[in-house]
């Protein structure tokens, strides 16, 4: 069953085409890697799927709702973690959790239990009353991830969740992602760390607004006759450079 279906999705900013006619589907329970260099159009595409940006043309559904006309319904069924840390730095850890639990309609009586459960899952019990701005970046990212799935969404969109995070914290972060996927949450994740691409069930590689490749990491390596996702990526990126000349 596809939870994300996108057909010919396009986004123009004036004369610039950020996302050019992309078509793909994401299946329920999948970890879908959305790869591409900076400026390839990953974030723009993701923002359209989350109902933060209106598509110029094309169509798509997320969790069964149309992204152009039913974006507020889409928002009830998704979680989102933006590239830039977007929780309130002047609120404490538990206050951010309480706010988003409340916004997503978690009943008031259940909120304290939800917060305790999240703190335990993150190993954050001692930081419950810490102001978010005092947390190190890796911790902030983990907190942002757990807040984005506080309401058990069908799909969670993660925009470069491990950007600027040290390798140990990145590995831990991916453990969280797997755990969420085990619980049935579909994960749509952008990254430009190719080792992370290997962790995904399927990946798409975006180059200059288009999807140039889409398959499992194993088959992509086979298709390009290379040993690692890094090489797949390099080949496609080089092709893009050639195209620009």
């Amino acid at each position, binding site marked *: 069953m596809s939870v994300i279906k996108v057909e010919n999705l396009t986004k123009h900013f004036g004369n610039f085409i950020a996302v050019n006619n992309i078509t793909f589907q994401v299946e329920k329970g999948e970890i879908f890697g959305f790869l591409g260099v900076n400026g390839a159009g990953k974030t723009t595409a993701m*923002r359209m799927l*989350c*109902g*933060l*940006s*209106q598509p110029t043309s094309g169509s798509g559904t997320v969790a069964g709702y149309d992204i152009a006309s039913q*974006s*507020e*319904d889409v*928002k*009830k069924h*998704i979680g*989102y973690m*933006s590239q*830039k*840390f*977007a*929780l*309130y*730095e*002047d*609120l404490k850890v538990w*206050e951010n959790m*309480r*706010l*988003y*639990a*409340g*916004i*997503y*309609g978690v009943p008031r009586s259940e909120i304290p239990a939800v917060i305790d459960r999240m703190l335990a899952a993150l190993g954050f019990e001692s930081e419950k009353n810490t102001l978010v701005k005092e947390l190190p970046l890796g911790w902030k990212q983990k907190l942002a991830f757990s*807040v984005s799935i506080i309401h058990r969404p069908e799909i969670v969109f993660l925009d470069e969740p491990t950007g600027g995070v040290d390798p140990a914290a990145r590995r831990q972060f991916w453990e969280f992602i797997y755990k969420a996927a085990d619980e049935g949450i579909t994960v749509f994740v952008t990254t430009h760390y190719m080792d992370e691409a290997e962790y995904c069930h399927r990946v798409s590689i975006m180059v200059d607004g288009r999807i140039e490749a889409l398959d499992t990491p194993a088959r992509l390596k086979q298709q390009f006759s290379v040993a690692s996702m890094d090489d797949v990526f390099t080949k496609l990126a080089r092709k893009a450079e050639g195209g620009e000349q």
Partner: protein
Amino acid sequence: MLRYLLEKEFKQFFRNRFLPRLVIALPLIALAVFPLVADMDVKNLSLSVIDSDHSRTSQQMQEKIASSGYFKESGNFADYKSALQSIEKGDADLLLEIPQQFEQSLNRENSGSLMIAANAVNGMQGGLGSAYLSAIIADYNRELIANTQGSAFLPVTAVEVRPLFRFNPNLSYRVFMIPALIAMMLVMICGFLPALNIVSEKENGTIEQVNVTPVSKFTFILSKLIPYWVIGFVVATLCIFTAFVFYGMFPTGSVLPLYIFIAVFVLGFSGFGLVVSNYAKNIQQAIFVMFFFVITLIFISGLYTPFKNMPAWMQMLGNASPLKYFIQVLRMTYLKSATFAEMQHLFYPLCALAVFFNSWAVLSYWKKSA
């Protein structure tokens, strides 16, 4: 949902090092100090005197002028030319020339002439100063007549105009200023803070996380509006309290209608601040746009200058300013003991503007970019 958003707004407000202090300190300082500073009453004028008469009358007249409290003598000059120089140098604001044989001519011919000259670089000060001086001299003239009653040179009584000033008998400028300052404080705090609020969430990126939730536009704007509404009551109360403690000014009318108007005004003006915040791309833009509108509104709403002095087209514009109605309410409550019924005609436009700006704030808040 609203509950959690409000909790968040209040926590952020009280956790801010600066904002709660600003909300308390600004109204206190403004209402305690500004009425002293921004005083347009014409006082302490420097007067140069050319007394060529050196008579008892000329002496008495100068004493009378000095005792009025409006003038201080900046010097006695031998001739008109040197006295005029003192004006040119800026040492004196006015000069009074008492010619030779002034007393004699008063006694013999029952008339005498004096000359007053005023520095009119500040037109209002020049005009009022010379008017005050003439009034004092006229007063002295009456005393002179009274003292010499029955004597041969009793002059013909002229028609005398004695104005009685209603509502502000001493024409004190403070009475005019304090309501304007209260309105200013509400505009500054309840207009600027909301204008900075949404746009700073845009700058911090936190608005993205909210926009991707199913929170409705209406709930979101309400969560931004209510805190400033509450703050508005605090600011207004502080202002009223300070004006009373420092200047003994308290609304002569009932306070309840005043608070009803404060509620509607703050709601409307904060709504306007939110509209600005919605359109602004960054804090800088929001600040400058607010400055532009606030300064314009202050001038076209009759805060410091009479509304009716403006050209008709400007008055039309002024009618769209919530500040115009609110300042009238403040002055009517402070000076005229106005009841709600007497101010009802100001209530409806204020309500309409509050609905207008807040609907606009909801409509101009986009969870989705084009």
